[in-house]
């Protein structure tokens, strides 16, 4: 690089004062070097990540493996309370996954099917629209991200999300290592020493494993589920007509939760 480190800090400091983002600092610092030092300049621009879950293949084992893979990697505690519950991916029945859709004559396999719900990473996300600090926003690749460093805990996003995909840290999540009744349920918490926990007072949710995607890996729920039932989960880029998820959606009938609200969910349920 044609610039010394002291100059980097000066530029970085100055650009912070001027309110420029981090990327701007890099651009001033070394135009062209940006791509070399990162593997995602404007992460996944043009992509539209989506997930398809085959309701026929989802069983208890798929559910427990997918949920625990996710929750252990992301250090999601078990707070043993429906009110304070934090969940990134969870099981739900047909009636409550698709409220208003059920009727008394719905087929038995659907009536008793189990669905795995997670953030829909909507293409038109109301949560991002309402956030007063841009603590939640949509990336160029469609992933709805959450910046826990910036969240003020106003919970407007939770009121705006029609899917109940967002959880709030009503208390310190790390209390599961201190409160005797919770310790047993959370042996080894935080499970993943390379991933942070959250602090009290911030909202959290599924990130489509953005940290793994950027390393070229796949979301953990999918990897875990497919180990149990091959093909139960498909993840891919909807903007690519040749992607496996697109060809799957061409072949199979799919449902999306509350599509009529116009948020354009990107999680599909194959029936």
């Amino acid at each position, binding site marked *: *690089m044609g610039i*010394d*480190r*002291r100059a*980097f*800090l000066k530029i*970085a*400091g100055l650009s*912070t004062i001027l309110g420029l*983002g*981090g*990327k701007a*600092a*890099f651009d001033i610092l070394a135009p062209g*070097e*940006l791509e*070399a*030092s*990162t*593997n*995602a*300049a*404007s*992460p*996944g621009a043009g992509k539209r990540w989506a997930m398809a879950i085959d309701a026929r293949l989802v069983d208890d084992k798929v559910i427990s493996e997918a949920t625990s893979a996710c929750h252990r990697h992301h250090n999601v505690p078990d707070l043993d309370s429906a009110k304070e519950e934090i969940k990134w991916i969870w099981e739900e029945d047909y009636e409550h996954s698709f409220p208003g859709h059920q009727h008394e004559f719905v087929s038995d396999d659907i009536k008793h099917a189990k669905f795995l719900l997670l953030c829909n990473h909507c293409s038109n996300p109301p949560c991002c629209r309402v956030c007063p600090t841009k603590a939640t*926003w949509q*990336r160029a690749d469609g992933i709805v*991200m959450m*910046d*826990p*460093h910036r969240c003020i805990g106003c919970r407007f996003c939770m009121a705006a999300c029609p899917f109940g995909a967002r959880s709030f840290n009503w208390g310190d999540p790390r209390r599961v290592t201190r409160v005797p009744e919770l310790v047993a349920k959370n042996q080894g918490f*935080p499970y993943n*020493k*390379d*991933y*942070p*926990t*959250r*602090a009290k007072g911030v909202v959290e949710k599924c990130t489509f494993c*953005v*940290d793994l995607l*950027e*390393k070229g890996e796949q979301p953990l729920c999918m990897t875990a589920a497919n180990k149990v039932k091959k093909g139960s989960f498909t993840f891919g880029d909807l903007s690519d007509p040749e992607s496996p998820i697109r060809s799957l959606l061409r072949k199979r009938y799919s449902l999306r939760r509350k599509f009529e609200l116009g948020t354009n969910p990107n999680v599909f349920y194959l029936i």
Partner: protein
Amino acid sequence: MYDGGKIIAGLIIGIGLLMSPFFYNAGKAAKAPERVLTEKAKQAKECILDKAQMTASHFKLLDEWRHTVVRDGQRYYKRADGKVLYKSLQVTCMDCHSNKANFCDQCHNYMAVTPYCWDCHIAPEEKK
């Protein structure tokens, strides 16, 4: 001036209270803590920036990192010598500086700053 005596007495008491921490601590300057490096950090020789810059501005760098990683998805950093680093306090920084108590806390306590990094990020386990 009405009630001049009361006002002056009040001022003296007020200023006295304000200054009390200075009087209390006078002549007891705390010694600046020494930087303690782990074996791994000593062997690495190079940090992200040079030592003076790291001491003075590590928090700016970390702020820059968290912003570019979380918000822009830029997860790698190219060091002056060309080495590429994974931008992570928890994974990269604390790998070498696994002695948080001596490396981070000691100086932060001395400077009376309480960064909230560790509310979320997991500190390495340290042998007491």
